[in-house]
């Protein structure tokens, strides 16, 4: 696949799914601690999301870094917009901002709970 084709595929994936997590491994079997943390947070919030395992494809693994201009995996997209990587998602979750974002974007999720 050309880089253009990879970027087109990513663009289509983030446009066609409300919440997409580019991660190492899958939501049920994360293969990296950072990806695992974000999957856990989304699971805790009860958010339905599409997982994309970048370990399945070197083209997507490199492609997503260029597409977002962000050097690391995981990467979370909500309604076609890049929200952040692991550190930002964790900070937003702890500050209640992730919950607020889901609310604003109309994404179904569990009601707010205090974080542990």
């Amino acid at each position, binding site marked *: 696949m050309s880089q253009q084709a990879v970027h087109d595929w990513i663009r289509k994936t983030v446009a066609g799914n409300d919440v997409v997590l580019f991660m190492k491994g899958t939501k049920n079997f994360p293969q990296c601690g*950072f990806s695992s943390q974000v999957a856990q947070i989304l699971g805790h919030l009860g958010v339905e999301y599409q997982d994309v395992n970048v370990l399945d494809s070197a083209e997507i693994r490199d492609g997503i*870094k260029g597409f977002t*201009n*962000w*050097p*690391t*995996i995981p990467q979370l997209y909500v309604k076609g917009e*890049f*929200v*952040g*990587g*692991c*550190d*930002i998602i964790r*900070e*937003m979750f702890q500050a209640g901002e992730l919950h607020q974002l889901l609310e604003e974007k109309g994404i179904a999720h569990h009601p707010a709970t205090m974080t542990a």
Partner: protein
Amino acid sequence: MPMKAKEIEGLIRARFPDAEVTIRDLAGDGDHYAAHVVTSEFKGKSRVQQHKMVYDALDGRMGGVLHALALTTAPPKD
């Protein structure tokens, strides 16, 4: 040992001379760090923008030789 804490700190300070940089070696193995960066240059910037500025300061090392850098950023408190 891919990168020393001092080296990471030096790259960040070179880009943000006023920055307060705190680096912790999480596992004692020289490969898993946490960095906290506070600089006036983050004022008015989103979290994503702030992190991108630090990644730019690290000049391609993030995601490469530097696999595990847990990053938190903030503008100074007034």
